[in-house]
């Protein structure tokens, strides 16, 4: 019985990941845009930076960040930023989009936990983001004449996964709170903007006041950005890797628990009132 239950769970996982990958690869143009976006944003920043600072640009950048390669530093940040935006937006809007497609209720005909279903969608996005990270970063590092070691890639992939899954918890909170308000995309945009600004994707957080740094510490993406910069871009950071991983694990549990709590409360209330299908 236990073995059959485990196999069933794996089938659900395979089904969700297969569905998301099929949807993703159906629109190759969007995939290309997502892969290219970190380069476009980095290119814009670097281009403006060199234009305003002139020949001293690289020296100033290294002095301010500890990184010798602005392209690698910013591409790393760009991949993480795009990944976090995608996970939050897709998870936040999942209820609304499933409702609009008319498939939301169908999920309740299965014996699966709906919270687990939506989190499996977030897992699928995270896996896609890891693949895109690999592609983008390998291109930059190879262009600079290097390679990621399997150990470095393993650490980076694990950190991305540990950073993205808790964001799904935030996404579920937004989804549950805004499903009636119709403008869930506005709420997702709000959360995305502050995560993007506070996580230090493109800059070291040490340049901000201590209160801002403390606020940033509660975001898993802050720690992910620091770890990736340390492992891939060789930027010195304050806390050792194991401490960051412990903090990220605690944050992951907290955010996922909050997501489950808010979503389950909404679901229970909606079932009682017969409002699961109410748009």
């Amino acid at each position, binding site marked *: 019985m236990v073995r059959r239950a485990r196999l069933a769970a794996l089938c659900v996982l395979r089904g969700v990941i297969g569905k998301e990958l099929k949807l993703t690869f159906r629109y190759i143009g969007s995939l290309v845009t997502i892969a290219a976006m970190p380069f476009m944003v980095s290119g814009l920043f670097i281009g*403006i930076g060199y234009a305003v600072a002139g020949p001293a640009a690289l020296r100033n950048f290294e002095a301010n960040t500890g990184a010798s390669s602005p392209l690698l530093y910013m591409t790393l940040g760009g991949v993480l930023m795009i990944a976090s935006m995608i996970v939050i937006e897709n998870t936040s809007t999942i209820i609304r989009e499933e409702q609009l497609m008319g498939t939301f209720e169908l999920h309740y005909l299965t014996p699966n936990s709906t919270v687990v279903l939506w989190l499996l969608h977030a897992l699928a996005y995270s896996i896609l983001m890891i693949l895109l990270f690999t592609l983008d970063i390998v291109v930059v590092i190879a262009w600079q004449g290097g390679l990621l070691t399997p150990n470095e890639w393993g650490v980076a992939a694990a950190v991305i996964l540990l950073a993205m899954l808790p964001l799904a918890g935030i996404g579920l909170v937004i989804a549950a709170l805004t499903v009636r308000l119709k403008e869930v995309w506005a709420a997702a945009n709000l959360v995305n903007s502050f995560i993007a600004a506070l996580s230090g994707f493109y800059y070291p957080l040490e340049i901000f006041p201590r209160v801002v740094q403390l606020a940033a510490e509660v975001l898993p993406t802050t720690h992910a950005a620091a770890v990736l910069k340390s492992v891939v871009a060789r930027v010195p950071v304050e806390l050792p890797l194991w401490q960051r991983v412990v903090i990220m694990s605690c944050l992951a549990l907290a955010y996922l628990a909050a997501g489950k709590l808010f979503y389950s409360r909404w679901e229970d209330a909606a079932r009682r009132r017969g409002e699961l299908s109410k748009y």
Partner: protein
Amino acid sequence: MKSYFRYVAWLVTDVITTPAWLVLFVTPVLLFLPKEQWGDPRTLNFFFWGFILWDVVSAGLWSFGMAVRREQQMGTLEFLMLTNASRAVLFSRNLYPRMLGLALSLVYVYAFFRVIFGVEVLLLNPLGVAAVLLVGMAASLGFGLVYGALVFNFKNVGPLNSILQFVLLGLSGVFFPPALYPEPLRTLALATPFTYVADLLRFYAMSAQTVLDPAAEWLTLTLYTAALLLAGTASLSLVERRLKRTGGLGTY
């Protein structure tokens, strides 16, 4: 205008998220400068006006350019095509909310900019700035109509919008003068209408030097805007006739 004010949450989040986007956008570039120059008013003013100009450029692609596609996706395109109204007028309906949006964003971006960076925004010639922004929006509309005709023809260009936006932002010198570009980028920059909008805006706001003489830039921008509006109107009409002949009007 009703559609613009229907989604209040978007308006509110637009205001609230502005400081976050300002920090996210300006800080990475400041890293290329020594710390003692991070508060330089002139450099920061380049960013302020660039942020405003970003609105003008993106209007051409996302508002005006995608107006046709949005009507297709809502299923209202065919009804519009049954009327004898000018297609250019129909698909430029976003001009009014975009101008209102631009005016509003000037106010709250200014407020957040002052609070976050603590520098005064340079506005040496308000009338000149207003004139450039108005003509800039018209140029953006013209560009959007031409782009919209392409979207009408090729249907799904969503990913192209994102890429084109960054290309235009970089090429048009929205954040810094194209005079700093190496050749042939500088010549290429002079081929985009937004270069003149950006250059003239900085000229009137900050007395920044223009690539060409201001009078020549005004003439070029005006001619460019008129040409784009005419070309946009003509191309929409051509594409519509072709799609009606081939039965492709309702295919998505």
